[in-house]
Structure formats: structure tokens, C-alpha cells
């Protein structure tokens, strides 16, 4: 299932070249992932739980710049889910133009022991778009 999340490019997202700063794409992608979880399972994003998600790897490729006031769309899809890790593919568009693509790998850890934990079923269900 592909999730769509919309954002507008504000001054705070841009740099001295007049385009969106390269870090802004990380924030938009993170907002999109959070909205998926909030929509399906608000508890998974609350902090203080014993088992929390951590990002282990991100790759981003930039194709075209975003500009001030652009309305952009982040399209997110679970690419791979394993017992201890999962990968989300995200593409950021302005209109039909692909601006950037990201591969985000994450795992779950026990916040006390810092050891890896199995990915919670409810979290996987949320990623796959199943109501939980």
C-alpha cells in the first residue's frame, strides 16, 4: 500500500541557493512515516515505551530541486519486512517531477537494554496499511 503525505515548502526548508535544503527531505520523509503510524496506531509513536524504533540506514538520491511554496507529495511504501528489520521506500514529488527517493531501514530495540527486539506485529500491520 502506498501512503501519500503532502507538505508545503516554507522559507525554513530553503537555503541560500533558493531551493529546498538537502536536509528538508529527511524531515518530510520522517513526517510521512509518522503520519502513517499516527493514522493506524498512535501508541507506536509515543515515547517511553520499552520497545522503540531506530533507524539503521538511510540512502537518499536527489534528482530535481524543490522551490519555495511548492506543494510536494511524499509517497511511502513498505519495501521489505523481516523479523528484526524493515525497509520503507519513499519518493518525493512536486507535480509529476520526482525530486528525491529514499530507502529507510529500521529496527526495534529495547530502550533499557539497547538490544534488538522482534518488530511488533502492530507496527508491521500499520506499515502494511492494515487497521490495528
Amino acid at each position: 500500500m502506498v501512503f501519500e503525505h503532502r507538505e508545503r515548502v516554507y522559507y525554513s526548508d530553503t537555503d541560500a541557493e533558493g531551493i529546498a535544503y538537502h536536509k528538508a527531505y529527511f524531515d518530510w520523509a520522517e513526517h510521512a512515516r509518522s503520519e502513517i503510524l499516527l493514522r493506524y496506531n498512535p501508541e507506536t509513536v509515543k515515547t517511553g515505551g520499552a520497545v522503540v524504533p531506530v533507524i539503521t540506514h538511510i540512502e537518499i538520491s536527489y534528482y530535481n530541486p524543490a522551490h519555495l511554496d511548492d506543494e510536494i507529495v511524499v509517497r511511502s511504501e513498505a519495501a521489505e519486512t523481516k523479523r528484526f528489520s524493515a525497509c520503507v521506500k519513499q519518493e518525493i514529488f512536486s507535480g509529476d517531477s520526482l525530486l528525491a527517493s529514499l530507502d529507510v531501514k529500521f529496527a526495534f530495540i529495547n530502550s533499557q537494554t539497547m538490544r534488538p527486539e522482534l518488530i511488533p506485529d502492530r507496527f508491521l500491520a500499520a506499515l502494511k496499511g492494515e487497521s490495528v
Partner: protein
Amino acid sequence: MSEHLWNKRIYYSDTDAEGIIYHAAYVDIAEHARTEMLRDRMNGLSYDKIAEEGAIFVLKSISLDYKRPGHLSDIITVRTRLRELKTVYCIFEQLVEKDGVVLAEIVTKIAFVSPKTMRPVPCPEKVAEALRRFKEE
């Protein structure tokens, strides 16, 4: 291969609700370290001076591997190396460390682009020479 070292303290603005360095903060940290490398090791060649030579640095891709969390008030060290220098792009590799322990590895591919046409251009010779010197010294 030579490397540039840059130290930075972790502030609230670098952290998230888990009390650790926010994953995208490493993107800023890496960018600041590359900028300071240019100023320290390339005869003060800042981005605006490089633009006057006929090229701007445009990010093509970034790959980040997260190994350990960093925390509020930590003093971290960024090791910046130039892995590859090609005609129209270069690749930096950076290690973010705390007391010798690697927190993250960051690899950044940067294209040289004409500020006028926004098309790829060969790295201006003065800049290429400084980058080569940093890579090999």
C-alpha cells in the same frame, strides 16, 4: 589519505524525544564539517569563492549508517575524507565519533554544476587542485 577533524557539541536542537541525536541532524553535522574542511584545508575556498570559479556543489546522494546513538552535551568529532575526485563529481566519506566510538558513517556524492546553466561542469582547476591536495597530502 588525509582527513580533516572537526569537533562539535550536541545541543537540544540536535536531539529528539528519545533523548538522542535526531537521525537527520547528522546531515547538518556532516555538511558543517565539510564546510569547515574547505575553509581550513583549501586556502579558505568557501562555497561563494568556488562559485566565482564557475561551479557550485550540488548533492546527488547521501548514504548514512547509524551505529550508536549520540546524546545531549556530547562532544563529537567528525573525520572528513575525500574518497574520490572525478571530473564532474566527488565523494566524501565522514565518520562521526564520540571518544573514538563511531556513531555514524556518512558517504556523500557531490556534483559540480554551473551556477549559470545548472548543468554539470568539470571541477574548476583551482578547486580541483585544492581538493587533490587535501585528498593526497
